[in-house]
């Protein structure tokens, strides 16, 4: 029984860390450029498609990953320079409309380029099987790799944003763009760079999750909402908050799916089959509502 809890905890952490990769970019772009970027999920999708394609073409997962991340970052910068830049000074509503439009365009373009059917690709053979963590307990090696990558990125990002002068300038640009420029910050470059980072993180998440889930049109939207939930729980603009929020959401989601059905098993599988998954899904939103009720600006509120 203990190993179930351990396994589910690991699953929760793994899901949470992947969510973090998406939420980190989202929270930075949101908190710092004050851009509500619904198309963040599209970059995740594009990254996944590119990495799947490169992996198949080059027959190497890691090469494909590297190339895919690079290209996605470029796509991100291109998007930022051509369209999103126009939206920074607009209100959140225009941003919602504009980036919603980008979702539609990205989805259809991918559908045209790659077809409507999902792509599948496999993790590197070395990570395909299970590893024995301790006698009698096996866990998928690939999921462990995902955790390692997520944790590493989290640490690097934290240092970059909160400990370096670049990080400070970026945050200053977020608080008051004009003032930051008057202090000598080249805000537009900083923002492009930041956006490239966000896009790269998206691609990384897409590439890591691709072999596990599926690379398909619309994959961005379903996870986007969760990423937004994470961002808000953590406090908009806070990388630390995104980290904690991701783990919370990942954990609640996984444990909810694991525990709730057994609570309902007494009512028979019919009831359990309809009520339990729904209730498990509600948990996350309940969590968010509760957190916002007690801490209206999220767990780690940033600035004004």
């Amino acid at each position, binding site marked *: 029984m203990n190993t179930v809890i351990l396994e589910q905890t690991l699953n929760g952490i793994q899901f949470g860390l992947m969510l973090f990769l998406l939420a980190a970019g989202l929270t930075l772009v949101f908190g710092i450029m004050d851009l509500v970027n619904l198309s963040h999920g599209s970059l995740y999708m594009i990254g996944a498609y590119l990495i799947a394609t490169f992996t198949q073409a080059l027959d190497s997962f890691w090469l494909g990953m590297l190339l895919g991340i690079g290209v996605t970052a470029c796509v991100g910068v291109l998007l930022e320079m051509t369209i999103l830049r126009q939206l920074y000074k607009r209100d959140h509503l225009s941003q919602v409309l504009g980036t919603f439009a980008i979702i539609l365009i990205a989805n259809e373009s991918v559908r045209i380029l790659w077809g409507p059917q999902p792509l599948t690709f496999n993790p590197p053979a070395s990570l395909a099987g299970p590893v024995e963590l301790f006698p009698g307990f096996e866990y998928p090696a690939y999921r462990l790799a995902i955790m390692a990558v997520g944790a590493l990125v989290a640490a690097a990002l934290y240092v970059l944003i909160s400990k370096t002068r670049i990080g400070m300038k970026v945050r200053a640009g977020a608080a008051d763009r004009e003032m930051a420029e008057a202090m000598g910050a080249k805000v537009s470059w900083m923002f492009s760079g930041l956006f490239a980072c966000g896009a790269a993180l998206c691609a990384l998440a897409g590439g890591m999750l691709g072999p596990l889930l599926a690379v398909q049109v619309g994959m961005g939207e379903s996870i986007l909402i969760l990423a937004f939930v994470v961002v808000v729980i953590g406090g*908009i603009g806070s990388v630390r908050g995104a980290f904690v929020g991701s783990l919370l959401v990942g954990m609640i989601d996984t444990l909810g799916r694991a525990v709730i059905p057994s609570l309902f098993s007494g009512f028979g599988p019919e009831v359990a089959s*309809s009520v339990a998954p729904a209730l498990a899904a509600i948990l996350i939103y309940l969590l968010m509502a509760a957190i*916002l009720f007690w801490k209206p600006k999220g767990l780690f509120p940033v600035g004004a």
Partner: protein
Amino acid sequence: MQAASILAATPTATPLRSVSGATSHSLSAAVTLPILLGLLLLPIAAHFYGQEYFLSPVTRVLIYAVAASSLNLILGFGGMVSFGHAAFMGVGAYAAAALMMNQVTSLWIALPVAMGLGAVVSAVIGLISLRAHGVYFIMITLAFAQMLYYVAISLKFLGGEDGLSLSARGSMWPVLEPLDDTALYYVAVLMLASVVVFIQRLVNANFGHVLEAIRINETRVASLGVNTFRHKLIAFMVAGALAGVSGALLAHQSGFVSPSLMHWTQSGVLMVMVILGGAGHLYGGIIGAIIYGVLEESLSGYTEHWQLALGVVLLVAVLVAPQGISRLILKRTPK
């Protein structure tokens, strides 16, 4: 008053605008009447050309126009960006379906019930979420809408995830048999017209002015002695009630309700309609719903990849008409 001396010198470079009490949103007859007339005559033209099919999508657009207008009331005028408006539509739709299941077929019952339920549910959600602001409000409303969505999924007796088919269309006195497409169309037209008139009166009245002031600076309104929470809650309930009605009508129009009516993407589409049309413009919701609906219906007829075209159109719209299409067409300068 001894202190009444006006500043000796003030730059008068800025042109003076006409002095009115507060912002005015007028219902211009030159725009409304032709549209209303056109809408009333449309079924006749459709029958004449044998294109009755089009009444269905047009009815749908009108119903969405009601929902979008109700969202525009709180989002555009009140600054409450609700990302869960589809939930109220869903509540109305389920109310209509549940009544139908119990052989209550009259829309005279279904619509008020949906309206009441919409108001009650929005009151509950509003009581909790209206304390939050900005993005946090957006997310809390989303959270509640998602909860309702999953509740709908888990309610076996309402069809659960699989949804519920309505056995037939409702009737509406004086029409005693199930409404056909044309009759339902007229119900929708009537509904939209009354909602527009109601909203127009509301936003030009005292309540509307206070609502707009709350959007701009809520604390300041509170320090002027106004209980801002109560005003926001009232607006939120009004919008929820109207959305409920539109949901009930949609249920009868499509004959099927399912949780996907309440999915967050539906709320997103309603928001997109409002922003596209022009948040805070009297016609914003309607014009947005029409443009979105017409684009969707017409483009999907031409190409499988209609979403690409739709995306491009929306993007261009946001770039050239930052205040929404209605302000572009109707040339009303924003405040």
